[in-house]
């Protein structure tokens, strides 16, 4: 059974949600405190959403130095899956586990609403359950979600197919949908070169049950639960 470590930073606020969503697919999920240095045999690590250290200075800038992050770095280096959601994505960028940076939304306001996305890769531990090109709807809720990187990095991300999630360019029926934050190339989520570290701005853990109105998020967790250590390395080596 999958051991899923949900890291709690001071200011994390989607920690319970991530835990619940992982448990909902039968994972053995537990909290790891930011001061811990041991992930207790985690197969998967989730950096949840929230405002670690109040997002003061830059979102994720301070959390990145938490003791636990060294363990996360090692886990990632060994090919262990890591999912950063929202603030977790910001932390992964600040920690240079993922390229680029997440800046204040182009609209300057916090944005909370459902957005439509396209899943562009299903060769990650968190998107395997989706078909490539699948259109899904998830909530976003962030003030600093504008993905930005140098042109070279952006070119590299596209060339290596490392864009995992993209905001759809437009939505029928609603002119108020697309790209909520002005991200470069409508990027909503990316992965590292090996494919085991994934960062996304939208919140699958808040959209995994019909009663919540949106259920597409469940796929991220069923993918995680079904994922086998070798399955990734195979896919990676195939490329």
């Amino acid at each position, binding site marked *: 059974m999958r051991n899923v470590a949900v890291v709690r930073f001071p200011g994390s606020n989607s920690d319970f949600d991530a835990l619940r969503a992982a448990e909902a697919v039968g994972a053995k999920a537990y909290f790891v405190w930011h001061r811990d240095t041991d992930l207790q045999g985690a197969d998967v690590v989730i950096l949840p959403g929230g405002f670690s*250290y*109040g997002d*003061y*200075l830059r979102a994720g800038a*301070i959390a990145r*130095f938490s003791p636990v992050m060294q363990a996360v770095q090692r886990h990632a280096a060994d090919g262990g899956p890591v999912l950063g959601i929202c603030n977790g994505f910001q932390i992964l960028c600040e920690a240079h586990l993922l390229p680029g940076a997440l800046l204040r939304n182009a609209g300057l306001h916090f944005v909370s609403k459902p957005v439509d996305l396209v899943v562009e890769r299903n060769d990650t531990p968190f998107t395997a359950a989706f078909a490539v090109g699948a259109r899904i709807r998830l909530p976003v809720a962030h003030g600093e979600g504008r993905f930005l990187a140098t042109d070279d990095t952006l070119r590299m991300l596209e060339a290596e197919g490392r864009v995992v999630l993209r905001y759809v360019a437009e939505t029928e029926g609603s002119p108020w949908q697309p790209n909520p934050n002005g991200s470069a190339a409508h990027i909503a989520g990316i992965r590292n070169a090996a494919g085991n570290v994934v960062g996304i701005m939208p919140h699958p853990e808040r959209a995994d049950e019909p009663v919540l109105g949106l259920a597409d998020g469940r796929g991220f967790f069923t993918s995680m639960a079904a994922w086998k250590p070798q399955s990734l390395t195979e896919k990676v080596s195939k490329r």
Partner: protein
Amino acid sequence: MTYRVNVKVMPRAGLLDPQGQAVEHALSALGFEEAAGVRIGRAIELEIAAPSRADAEARARQMCDKLLANPVTEDYLLRIEEH
């Protein structure tokens, strides 16, 4: 003549500066114990076309008083260079 204006807008002395506090903690956690009294504000750069440096400064002040700084919670500091 255009002048380059540097405005530094800082939280009023005595007002709580949670951001500064958090950064100060982070710094000492990173081994920079020698850092103290961290305060964080905004830095604003702009160019002003004006007949004279004095005019540029006067206009810049008006901009700060009217918009760039919040008189209730912030103090500002102006620096002007020719350009």
